[in-house]
Protein backbone atom coordinates (compact mmCIF):
# COMPACT_ATOMS: atom_id res chain seq x y z
CA UNK A 1 0.00 0.00 0.00
CA UNK A 2 2.81 2.35 0.91
CA UNK A 3 4.42 1.68 -2.46
CA UNK A 4 1.19 2.43 -4.29
CA UNK A 5 0.79 5.73 -2.45
CA UNK A 6 4.37 6.58 -3.38
CA UNK A 7 3.62 5.92 -7.06
CA UNK A 8 0.43 7.99 -6.87
CA UNK A 9 2.24 10.81 -5.14
CA UNK A 10 5.04 10.90 -7.69
CA UNK A 11 2.78 10.78 -10.77
CA UNK A 12 0.02 13.25 -10.02
CA UNK A 13 -0.83 14.25 -13.58
CA UNK A 14 -1.06 10.62 -14.73
CA UNK A 15 -3.38 9.88 -11.81
CA UNK A 16 -5.42 12.86 -12.99
CA UNK A 17 -5.76 11.32 -16.48
CA UNK A 18 -6.98 8.08 -14.92
CA UNK A 19 -9.45 9.78 -12.57
CA UNK A 20 -11.01 11.93 -15.30
CA UNK A 21 -11.19 8.88 -17.58
CA UNK A 22 -13.04 6.87 -14.96
CA UNK A 23 -15.35 9.79 -14.19
CA UNK A 24 -16.18 10.15 -17.90
CA UNK A 25 -16.79 6.42 -18.22
CA UNK A 26 -19.19 6.48 -15.28
CA UNK A 27 -20.95 9.59 -16.58
CA UNK A 28 -21.45 8.11 -20.05
CA UNK A 29 -22.88 4.99 -18.42
CA UNK A 30 -25.31 7.06 -16.33
CA UNK A 31 -26.24 9.12 -19.40
CA UNK A 32 -27.12 6.02 -21.44
CA UNK A 33 -28.72 4.00 -18.68
CA UNK A 34 -30.82 6.61 -16.89
CA UNK A 35 -31.27 9.50 -19.30
CA UNK A 36 -31.36 7.64 -22.65
CA UNK A 37 -28.46 9.93 -23.72
CA UNK A 38 -30.78 12.93 -23.57
CA UNK A 39 -28.38 14.59 -21.15
CA UNK A 40 -24.92 14.23 -22.70
CA UNK A 41 -22.34 12.27 -20.73
CA UNK A 42 -19.97 15.24 -20.80
CA UNK A 43 -22.59 17.45 -19.11
CA UNK A 44 -23.01 14.89 -16.35
CA UNK A 45 -19.24 14.56 -16.00
CA UNK A 46 -18.79 18.34 -15.71
CA UNK A 47 -21.57 18.51 -13.14
CA UNK A 48 -20.02 15.63 -11.17
CA UNK A 49 -16.73 17.51 -11.40
CA UNK A 50 -18.37 20.47 -9.70
CA UNK A 51 -19.74 18.16 -7.00
CA UNK A 52 -16.24 16.75 -6.45
CA UNK A 53 -14.93 20.32 -6.31
CA UNK A 54 -17.44 21.03 -3.56
CA UNK A 55 -16.54 17.88 -1.62
CA UNK A 56 -12.83 18.71 -1.88
CA UNK A 57 -13.42 22.13 -0.37
CA UNK A 58 -15.73 20.65 2.25
CA UNK A 59 -13.21 18.10 3.49
CA UNK A 60 -9.97 20.08 3.22
CA UNK A 61 -11.07 23.70 3.59
CA UNK A 62 -8.73 24.52 0.70
CA UNK A 63 -9.58 26.54 -2.38
CA UNK A 64 -8.72 24.17 -5.21
CA UNK A 65 -11.58 21.71 -4.96
CA UNK A 66 -10.81 18.02 -5.11
CA UNK A 67 -7.18 18.68 -6.00
CA UNK A 68 -6.52 19.83 -2.44
CA UNK A 69 -6.76 16.17 -1.45
CA UNK A 70 -3.16 15.03 -1.81
CA UNK A 71 -3.75 11.97 -4.02
CA UNK A 72 -5.94 13.97 -6.43
CA UNK A 73 -3.58 16.92 -6.85
CA UNK A 74 -2.93 15.91 -10.47
CA UNK A 75 -6.54 16.75 -11.34
CA UNK A 76 -5.67 20.31 -10.41
CA UNK A 77 -2.72 20.29 -12.82
CA UNK A 78 -4.84 18.88 -15.65
CA UNK A 79 -7.62 21.37 -14.92
CA UNK A 80 -5.27 24.29 -14.26
CA UNK A 81 -5.03 27.34 -16.45
CA UNK A 82 -2.13 26.06 -18.60
CA UNK A 83 -3.81 22.90 -19.87
CA UNK A 84 -7.19 24.64 -20.03
CA UNK A 85 -5.89 27.42 -22.25
CA UNK A 86 -3.78 25.01 -24.32
CA UNK A 87 -6.76 22.76 -25.01
CA UNK A 88 -8.99 25.76 -25.79
CA UNK A 89 -6.44 26.99 -28.34
CA UNK A 90 -6.36 23.49 -29.86
CA UNK A 91 -10.13 23.66 -30.43
CA UNK A 92 -9.38 26.35 -33.03
CA UNK A 93 -8.52 23.38 -35.23
CA UNK A 94 -12.23 22.85 -35.81
CA UNK A 95 -13.04 26.52 -36.31
CA UNK A 96 -13.11 28.35 -39.58
CA UNK A 97 -11.20 31.60 -39.77
CA UNK A 98 -13.72 32.93 -42.30
CA UNK A 99 -16.66 32.32 -39.95
CA UNK A 100 -14.84 34.00 -37.10
CA UNK A 101 -14.07 36.99 -39.28
CA UNK A 102 -17.67 37.15 -40.49
CA UNK A 103 -19.04 37.31 -36.96
CA UNK A 104 -16.23 39.42 -35.55
CA UNK A 105 -18.32 42.58 -35.26
CA UNK A 106 -21.18 40.74 -33.56
CA UNK A 107 -18.63 39.27 -31.16
CA UNK A 108 -17.20 42.68 -30.26
CA UNK A 109 -20.63 44.23 -29.75
CA UNK A 110 -21.69 41.34 -27.55
CA UNK A 111 -18.54 41.76 -25.45
CA UNK A 112 -19.47 45.35 -24.64
CA UNK A 113 -23.07 44.47 -23.88
CA UNK A 114 -21.96 41.49 -21.82
CA UNK A 115 -19.75 43.54 -19.53
CA UNK A 116 -22.39 46.28 -19.26
CA UNK A 117 -25.21 43.87 -18.36
CA UNK A 118 -23.22 42.01 -15.72
CA UNK A 119 -21.65 45.09 -14.20
CA UNK A 120 -24.86 47.10 -13.96
CA UNK A 121 -26.87 44.15 -12.64
CA UNK A 122 -24.17 43.39 -10.06
CA UNK A 123 -24.05 47.00 -8.89
CA UNK A 124 -27.86 47.18 -8.73
CA UNK A 125 -28.08 44.03 -6.59
CA UNK A 126 -25.33 45.26 -4.26
CA UNK A 127 -27.13 48.62 -4.01
CA UNK A 128 -30.40 46.91 -3.14
CA UNK A 129 -28.48 44.94 -0.51
CA UNK A 130 -27.47 48.19 1.18
CA UNK A 131 -24.04 49.03 -0.22
CA UNK A 132 -23.61 52.73 -0.94
CA UNK A 133 -19.87 53.40 -1.32
CA UNK A 134 -18.66 53.43 -4.93
CA UNK A 135 -15.58 51.25 -4.23
CA UNK A 136 -17.59 48.31 -2.87
CA UNK A 137 -20.30 48.72 -5.50
CA UNK A 138 -17.73 48.75 -8.30
CA UNK A 139 -15.86 45.71 -6.92
CA UNK A 140 -19.05 43.67 -6.58
CA UNK A 141 -20.21 44.73 -10.04
CA UNK A 142 -16.82 43.68 -11.40
CA UNK A 143 -17.15 40.35 -9.56
CA UNK A 144 -20.41 39.80 -11.44
CA UNK A 145 -18.27 39.91 -14.63
CA UNK A 146 -15.71 37.22 -13.72
CA UNK A 147 -13.87 36.04 -10.63
CA UNK A 148 -10.72 37.67 -12.00
CA UNK A 149 -12.18 41.08 -12.85
CA UNK A 150 -13.60 41.32 -9.29
CA UNK A 151 -10.37 41.03 -7.30
CA UNK A 152 -8.32 42.95 -9.90
CA UNK A 153 -10.78 45.85 -9.63
CA UNK A 154 -11.04 45.56 -5.85
CA UNK A 155 -7.27 45.60 -5.45
CA UNK A 156 -6.92 48.59 -7.79
CA UNK A 157 -9.53 50.59 -5.88
CA UNK A 158 -8.50 49.49 -2.38
CA UNK A 159 -11.69 47.63 -1.50
CA UNK A 160 -11.97 45.75 1.81
CA UNK A 161 -10.95 42.10 1.80
CA UNK A 162 -14.53 41.00 2.61
CA UNK A 163 -15.83 42.76 -0.49
CA UNK A 164 -13.02 41.28 -2.61
CA UNK A 165 -13.80 37.79 -1.29
CA UNK A 166 -17.46 38.42 -2.08
CA UNK A 167 -16.62 39.47 -5.64
CA UNK A 168 -14.60 36.28 -6.16
CA UNK A 169 -17.50 34.25 -4.77
CA UNK A 170 -19.96 35.96 -7.13
CA UNK A 171 -17.68 35.32 -10.11
CA UNK A 172 -17.36 31.64 -9.20
CA UNK A 173 -21.13 31.30 -8.84
CA UNK A 174 -21.43 32.87 -12.30
CA UNK A 175 -19.03 30.33 -13.83
CA UNK A 176 -20.99 27.47 -12.28
CA UNK A 177 -24.35 28.97 -13.28
CA UNK A 178 -23.25 29.42 -16.91
CA UNK A 179 -21.86 25.86 -16.96
CA UNK A 180 -25.14 24.39 -15.74
CA UNK A 181 -27.68 26.61 -17.52
CA UNK A 182 -26.08 26.86 -20.98
CA UNK A 183 -27.03 23.33 -22.13
CA UNK A 184 -30.49 23.80 -20.61
CA UNK A 185 -31.30 27.09 -22.38
CA UNK A 186 -29.22 26.71 -25.55
CA UNK A 187 -32.09 25.70 -27.84
CA UNK A 188 -34.55 28.23 -26.42
CA UNK A 189 -32.25 31.20 -27.00
CA UNK A 190 -31.10 30.17 -30.46
CA UNK A 191 -27.56 29.19 -29.54
CA UNK A 192 -26.92 26.81 -32.42
CA UNK A 193 -24.46 28.33 -34.90
CA UNK A 194 -20.85 29.55 -34.90
CA UNK A 195 -21.98 33.19 -35.06
CA UNK A 196 -24.39 32.83 -32.15
CA UNK A 197 -21.73 31.00 -30.14
CA UNK A 198 -19.37 33.95 -30.66
CA UNK A 199 -22.06 36.32 -29.41
CA UNK A 200 -22.74 34.01 -26.48
CA UNK A 201 -19.08 34.00 -25.48
CA UNK A 202 -19.12 37.78 -25.52
CA UNK A 203 -22.28 38.11 -23.45
CA UNK A 204 -21.39 35.56 -20.77
CA UNK A 205 -17.65 36.15 -20.74
CA UNK A 206 -16.47 33.65 -18.17
CA UNK A 207 -14.19 31.54 -20.39
CA UNK A 208 -14.38 28.54 -18.07
CA UNK A 209 -18.18 28.70 -17.87
CA UNK A 210 -18.72 29.38 -21.57
CA UNK A 211 -16.30 26.64 -22.58
CA UNK A 212 -17.79 24.09 -20.19
CA UNK A 213 -21.37 25.08 -21.01
CA UNK A 214 -20.79 24.88 -24.77
CA UNK A 215 -18.92 21.59 -24.38
CA UNK A 216 -22.05 20.14 -22.80
CA UNK A 217 -24.25 21.72 -25.49
CA UNK A 218 -22.35 21.09 -28.73
CA UNK A 219 -18.55 20.69 -28.75
CA UNK A 220 -18.41 22.13 -32.29
CA UNK A 221 -19.40 25.53 -30.88
CA UNK A 222 -16.64 25.64 -28.24
CA UNK A 223 -13.94 27.40 -30.27
CA UNK A 224 -16.33 30.14 -31.42
CA UNK A 225 -17.55 30.86 -27.89
CA UNK A 226 -14.03 30.74 -26.50
CA UNK A 227 -12.51 33.08 -29.07
CA UNK A 228 -14.64 36.00 -27.83
CA UNK A 229 -15.01 35.02 -24.16
CA UNK A 230 -11.26 35.14 -23.74
CA UNK A 231 -11.30 38.90 -24.34
CA UNK A 232 -13.97 39.52 -21.71
CA UNK A 233 -11.84 39.32 -18.56
CA UNK A 234 -9.15 41.59 -20.00
CA UNK A 235 -11.69 44.13 -21.19
CA UNK A 236 -13.45 43.96 -17.82
CA UNK A 237 -10.16 44.56 -15.97
CA UNK A 238 -9.65 47.54 -18.23
CA UNK A 239 -12.96 49.39 -17.87
CA UNK A 240 -14.35 48.35 -14.46
CA UNK A 241 -11.76 50.07 -12.25
CA UNK A 242 -11.44 53.07 -14.58
CA UNK A 243 -14.42 54.25 -16.62
CA UNK A 244 -17.11 52.41 -14.65
CA UNK A 245 -15.64 53.49 -11.33
CA UNK A 246 -15.55 57.14 -12.38
CA UNK A 247 -19.22 56.94 -13.37
CA UNK A 248 -20.16 55.29 -10.06
CA UNK A 249 -18.17 57.89 -8.16
CA UNK A 250 -20.05 60.68 -9.91
CA UNK A 251 -23.37 59.08 -8.94
CA UNK A 252 -22.63 58.07 -5.36
CA UNK A 253 -20.07 60.53 -4.03
Amino acid at each position, binding site marked *: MEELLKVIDKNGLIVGFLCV*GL*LTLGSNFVSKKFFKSRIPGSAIAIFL*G*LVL*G*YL*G*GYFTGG*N*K*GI*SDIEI*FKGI*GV*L*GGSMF*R*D*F*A*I*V*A*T*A*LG*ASYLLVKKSGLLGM*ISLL*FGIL*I*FFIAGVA*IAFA*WGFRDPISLCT*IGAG*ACTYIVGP*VTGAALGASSEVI*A*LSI*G*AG*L*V*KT*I*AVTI*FTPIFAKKI*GLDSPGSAM*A*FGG*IMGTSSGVA*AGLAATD*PKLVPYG*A*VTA*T*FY*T*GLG*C*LICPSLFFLILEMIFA
Partner: protein
Amino acid sequence: MIIYGLALLSFSYLVGQWIGELLGKLLGINSNVGGVGFAMLILMVLKEVFERKGWWKEDLILGIDFWNKMYIPVVIAMAASLNVKSAISSGNLAILVGIIPVFLGFAFFPVLLKSFKQ
Protein backbone atom coordinates in the same frame (compact mmCIF):
# COMPACT_ATOMS: atom_id res chain seq x y z
CA MET B 1 5.27 14.00 -37.63
CA ILE B 2 2.99 14.45 -34.65
CA ILE B 3 5.51 16.66 -32.90
CA TYR B 4 5.27 19.22 -35.73
CA GLY B 5 1.59 19.68 -35.01
CA LEU B 6 2.19 19.88 -31.29
CA ALA B 7 4.99 22.39 -31.82
CA LEU B 8 2.77 24.46 -34.10
CA LEU B 9 0.07 24.49 -31.42
CA SER B 10 2.64 25.43 -28.77
CA PHE B 11 4.03 28.18 -30.97
CA SER B 12 0.56 29.67 -31.50
CA TYR B 13 -0.20 29.36 -27.78
CA LEU B 14 3.00 31.06 -26.63
CA VAL B 15 2.89 33.87 -29.18
CA GLY B 16 -0.80 34.48 -28.43
CA GLN B 17 -0.20 34.64 -24.68
CA TRP B 18 2.73 36.96 -25.28
CA ILE B 19 0.57 39.34 -27.32
CA GLY B 20 -2.07 39.17 -24.57
CA GLU B 21 0.49 40.11 -21.92
CA LEU B 22 1.92 42.94 -24.06
CA LEU B 23 -1.56 44.29 -24.75
CA GLY B 24 -2.35 44.15 -21.03
CA LYS B 25 0.81 46.09 -20.25
CA LEU B 26 0.10 48.57 -23.02
CA LEU B 27 -3.33 49.23 -21.57
CA GLY B 28 -1.84 49.58 -18.11
CA ILE B 29 -3.70 46.69 -16.50
CA ASN B 30 -2.29 43.79 -14.62
CA SER B 31 -3.97 41.15 -16.75
CA ASN B 32 -3.61 39.18 -19.95
CA VAL B 33 -5.94 40.64 -22.58
CA GLY B 34 -7.24 37.99 -24.94
CA GLY B 35 -4.07 35.89 -25.05
CA VAL B 36 -6.01 32.73 -25.75
CA GLY B 37 -8.09 34.47 -28.41
CA PHE B 38 -4.98 35.72 -30.22
CA ALA B 39 -3.45 32.25 -29.99
CA MET B 40 -6.59 30.76 -31.59
CA LEU B 41 -6.52 33.32 -34.40
CA ILE B 42 -2.82 32.64 -35.02
CA LEU B 43 -3.47 28.89 -35.20
CA MET B 44 -6.40 29.43 -37.61
CA VAL B 45 -4.27 31.61 -39.88
CA LEU B 46 -1.34 29.16 -39.77
CA LYS B 47 -3.76 26.38 -40.68
CA GLU B 48 -4.86 28.32 -43.77
CA VAL B 49 -1.25 28.96 -44.77
CA PHE B 50 -0.18 25.35 -44.23
CA GLU B 51 -3.17 24.09 -46.20
CA ARG B 52 -2.26 26.29 -49.13
CA LYS B 53 1.37 25.16 -49.03
CA GLY B 54 0.35 21.52 -48.80
CA TRP B 55 2.01 21.07 -45.40
CA TRP B 56 -1.24 20.32 -43.58
CA LYS B 57 -0.66 16.56 -43.28
CA GLU B 58 -2.59 14.00 -41.31
CA ASP B 59 0.31 13.30 -38.94
CA LEU B 60 0.73 16.95 -38.13
CA ILE B 61 -3.01 17.36 -37.52
CA LEU B 62 -2.93 14.47 -35.03
CA GLY B 63 -0.60 16.41 -32.75
CA ILE B 64 -3.13 19.23 -32.47
CA ASP B 65 -6.23 17.09 -32.62
CA PHE B 66 -5.21 15.17 -29.52
CA TRP B 67 -5.45 18.34 -27.42
CA ASN B 68 -8.55 19.45 -29.29
CA LYS B 69 -10.22 16.24 -28.17
CA MET B 70 -8.73 16.43 -24.66
CA TYR B 71 -10.62 19.63 -24.21
CA ILE B 72 -13.68 18.19 -22.45
CA PRO B 73 -11.62 16.04 -20.03
CA VAL B 74 -9.59 19.14 -19.16
CA VAL B 75 -12.81 21.04 -18.50
CA ILE B 76 -14.04 18.21 -16.26
CA ALA B 77 -10.77 18.38 -14.31
CA MET B 78 -11.15 22.14 -14.14
CA ALA B 79 -14.69 21.85 -12.75
CA ALA B 80 -13.39 19.44 -10.10
CA SER B 81 -10.69 21.87 -9.03
CA LEU B 82 -12.88 24.96 -8.76
CA ASN B 83 -13.55 26.42 -5.34
CA VAL B 84 -17.21 25.39 -5.40
CA LYS B 85 -17.46 25.23 -1.63
CA SER B 86 -16.49 28.85 -1.13
CA ALA B 87 -18.71 29.94 -4.04
CA ILE B 88 -21.73 28.36 -2.39
CA SER B 89 -20.86 29.45 1.12
CA SER B 90 -19.80 33.01 0.36
CA GLY B 91 -23.25 34.21 1.25
CA ASN B 92 -26.57 34.99 -0.35
CA LEU B 93 -25.40 38.24 -1.91
CA ALA B 94 -22.59 36.47 -3.82
CA ILE B 95 -25.06 33.86 -5.06
CA LEU B 96 -27.56 36.52 -6.18
CA VAL B 97 -24.85 38.59 -7.90
CA GLY B 98 -23.55 35.41 -9.52
CA ILE B 99 -26.87 34.09 -10.81
CA ILE B 100 -29.33 36.94 -11.56
CA PRO B 101 -27.14 38.65 -14.21
CA VAL B 102 -26.65 35.26 -15.90
CA PHE B 103 -30.41 35.03 -16.40
CA LEU B 104 -30.45 38.61 -17.70
CA GLY B 105 -27.71 37.56 -20.12
CA PHE B 106 -29.76 34.59 -21.31
CA ALA B 107 -32.80 36.88 -21.74
CA PHE B 108 -30.85 39.53 -23.63
CA PHE B 109 -29.01 37.09 -25.91
CA PRO B 110 -31.89 36.39 -28.37
CA VAL B 111 -32.62 40.14 -28.56
CA LEU B 112 -29.02 40.83 -29.59
CA LEU B 113 -29.06 38.06 -32.19
CA LYS B 114 -32.31 39.32 -33.69
CA SER B 115 -31.36 42.96 -33.82
CA PHE B 116 -28.04 42.08 -35.41
CA LYS B 117 -29.65 40.07 -38.18
CA GLN B 118 -31.74 43.03 -39.35
